[in-house]
């Protein structure tokens, strides 16, 4: 208390200041309680968050992240409340006087009196102080400043207490759910494990071809517990592609045999072989050829080479061998040795084709199983609906048997594909399955062989040869106008934007304006393959 406070109306001023001091102490106590409760709230929040994170653990990453985020937000809110209370809380008798005036409905009487006590005095101010002091003596500090906790502190605190109680009762989630939710390594169900084992049994009988190797790797990836879903999906996609490729190879081989059979039909002594070839039965054709040549039966098994050893035989034309064998069959003993060698080589080649077809059939049969696995893995993962639909959709490659192509929009029949050709081609001889015979590049929708859209667009952007009219004016020097320059710059910007958009567009959703370009690109590729 200052000297001036004591000098004027001392008794009244004392009474007034005593009351205001008591009110001020209670207000400070209220503020301290609020701060302590906010700190307690922070502790409760930390405990609740810790408990909830322990409950969710790795089983529900989204829920865990949500808990962490909400805890962070709530902590920020509580800290804001704490800081706001500490920073805006004004201490002193002035605030106590204002508070007491408000609570008692005194219309600034105590506040004014406090200022009059501290300021210069006169009869009017002394009278006012005395009045205020008389009123102050009738007031109870406990009623003016009740000890209470504000609702803005009490409500969050109660909510946090309830949350902690609930969180404490929750049981931690199980490990299996844990892994499935995390997506780090999704365990296969017993049915899926059976499918994988069946596939492995199929592949154990097949020779070591690239398709078979890809499939084996995919199955190994599927069996790995720590492999991520994304890796499994990628491995399955590659395996699916290998299976499709295998189908294409088989179709190509059958088509080749059919054509060969057609051409050999006219050869004397080769009618049965030609018929077997036309039917696509390489094994039977080899047996017939063996029988016609009178080769010992023991050589037939030896004549079936492994896929690796058969590689040089591919270089020779089977048709030529068969024609040589047929011609030698009609000649004398002098040529018997050479005809026997040619016949033997032809039989070996046919046996090799038959083995390859069997392997390809085995791998091709695994396609459905792979597709089922793909579906189940994709359904468990957090893949987007569009991406899932894209992966689950059938590959848009021509079927090995019919040459028809099942596409998302429907089915493209072989006859339709043939009708689209502008020029006659070798493959047009009754089918468009030349593409399906492996002469074209792998399907671009999935797999490593797909050419990125970026490259396709660059190829599309290759400069066209100059027009004859332009050549005539080559001697002229043209300076681009500002308009041309700005137009070119604008086009460059537009092209970049379009390119960026095309880059970000998923493969299955090629932008409408690029579809024609992509189609043209593939058509050109096929033309080039001829």
């Amino acid at each position, binding site marked *: 208390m200052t000297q001036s406070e004591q000098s004027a109306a001392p008794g009244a001023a004392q009474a007034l200041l005593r009351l205001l001091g008591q009110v001020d102490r209670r207000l400070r106590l209220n503020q301290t309680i609020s701060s302590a409760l906010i700190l307690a709230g922070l502790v409760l929040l930390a405990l609740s968050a810790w408990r909830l994170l322990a409950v969710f653990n790795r089983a529900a990453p989204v829920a865990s992240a949500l808990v962490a985020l909400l805890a962070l937000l709530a902590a920020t809110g509580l800290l804001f409340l704490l800081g706001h209370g500490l920073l805006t809380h004004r201490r002193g008798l002035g605030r106590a006087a204002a508070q007491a005036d408000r609570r008692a409905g005194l219309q600034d*009487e105590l506040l004014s009196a406090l200022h009059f006590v501290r300021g210069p005095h006169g009869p009017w101010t002394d009278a006012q102080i005395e*009045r205020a002091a008389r009123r102050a003596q009738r007031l109870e500090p406990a009623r003016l400043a009740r000890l209470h906790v504000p609702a803005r502190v009490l409500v969050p605190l109660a909510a946090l207490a309830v949350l902690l109680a609930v969180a404490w009762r929750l049981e931690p989630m199980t490990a299996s759910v844990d892994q499935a939710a995390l997506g780090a390594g999704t365990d296969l169900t017993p049915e899926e494990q059976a499918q994988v084992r069946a596939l492995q049994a199929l592949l154990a009988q097949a020779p070591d071809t690239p398709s078979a190797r890809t499939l084996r790797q995919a199955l190994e990836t599927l069996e790995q517990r720590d492999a991520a879903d994304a890796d499994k999906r990628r491995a399955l996609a590659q395996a699916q592609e290998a299976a499709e490729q295998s189908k294409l190879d088989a179709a190509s081989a059958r088509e080749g045999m059919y054509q060969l059979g057609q051409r050999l039909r006219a050869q004397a002594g080769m009618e049965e072989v030609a018929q077997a070839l036309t039917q696509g039965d390489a094994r039977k054709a080899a047996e017939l050829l063996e029988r016609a040549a009178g080769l010992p039966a023991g050589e037939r098994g030896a004549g079936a080479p492994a896929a690796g050893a058969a590689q040089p035989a591919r270089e020779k034309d089977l048709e030529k061998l068969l024609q040589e064998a047929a011609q030698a069959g009609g000649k004398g003993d002098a040529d018997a040795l050479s005809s026997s060698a040619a016949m033997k080589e032809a039989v070996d080649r046919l046996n090799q084709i038959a083995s390859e077809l069997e392997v390809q059939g085995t791998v091709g049969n695994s396609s459905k199983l792979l597709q089922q696995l793909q579906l189940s893995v994709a359904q468990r993962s957090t893949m987007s609906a569009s991406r899932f639909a894209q992966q689950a959709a059938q590959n848009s490659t021509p079927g090995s048997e019919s040459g028809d192509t099942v596409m998302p929009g429907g089915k493209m029949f072989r006859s339709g594909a043939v009708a689209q050709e502008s020029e006659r081609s070798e493959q047009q001889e009754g089918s468009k399955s030349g593409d399906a015979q492996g002469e074209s590049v792998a399907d671009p929708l999935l797999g490593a062989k797909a050419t990125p859209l970026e490259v396709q667009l660059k190829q599309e952007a290759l400069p066209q040869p100059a027009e004859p009219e332009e050549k005539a004016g080559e001697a002229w020097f043209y300076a681009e106008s500002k308009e041309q320059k700005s137009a070119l710059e604008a086009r460059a910007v537009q092209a970049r934007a379009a390119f960026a958009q095309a880059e970000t567009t998923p493969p299955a959703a090629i932008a409408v304006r690029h579809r024609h370009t992509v189609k043209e690109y593939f058509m050109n590729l096929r033309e080039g393959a001829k």
Partner: protein
Amino acid sequence: MSTVAVDRQIEQFRENFRVVRDEVSRVIVGNDRNIVGIMTCLLARGHVLLEGIPGIGKTKLVQTLADVLHLKFSRIQFTPDLMPGDIIGTTVVREDEAGRKHMQFQRGPIFANLVLADEINRATPKTQSALLEAMQENSVSAGGQTHPLEQPFFVLATMNPLEMEGTYMLPEAQLDRFFFKLKMGFPPADALHDIIERTTRAQDPVVERVLGQGQILEMRDTARSVPVARPIQQYAIDLTLATHPESERATEMTRKYVRFGSSPRGTQALILGAKVNALLSDRLHVSCEDIRSVALDALRHRILLNFDAEADKVDADAILSDVLHRVKEPE
């Protein structure tokens, strides 16, 4: 002066005020707020601008007040051909008994305690400014001489918001000279009954003169003696500053609709009006509530609105209500 004397003075003030109000209420019905407003201006040494549609009793109210107060009353009907000399007076040539001629100042109607300037906006600006100058200076200059006006000098100007054709709106600087601008609204149905009963009888109600010149001057001194605490003064200043669009205390509505805010005279009017209000509430101190109760009357004519306010039909009262709502009381 002892505390007891102060209390007695306050009691006397309230009693005088009550007597005047009761006496005026015998004639004027349903206008208690305006009666209090006019009396507040009289006791705060200010002048009043009364605005209202024709026929709602503006002139009657002032005439009744003049009858109740034992003061010299004059009425000036403002017309376009009214000249300044018609208000303040003129110098005339007089001949004394000896036959000598000399110039003599003939006092105009402004030399009264209570001046009713009826329809002030019908006179030309030149005539208006003659009155407004006298209001500000409390004296009249004519013929090279200054003639002080007798106290209390209290001007009640009336203004009709309709029939604006052929009128001269008071400039903002001259509006600022008025302590309060009171709006007289249409009386409610109950009040209309009383008005008809009182004014259609054979005899009009008669009022008595209850307050003399000395008592009024004493009441004026009493009103000025009420102390104001610094935080309350700060609240009045905050309110004034909140009406200035360029001030950092300005509200959003002020920034949008106000061209110029209230002058310091506005703050003075707030404090003085609040002092009278505090005395009427038997308090020795001014509260924020006192300031709020007089804020509209004290500030509404001191705020200059911009075109947006005209376009959006926002008036000064709406802006002031927003300011009163947003400016925080001292803590």
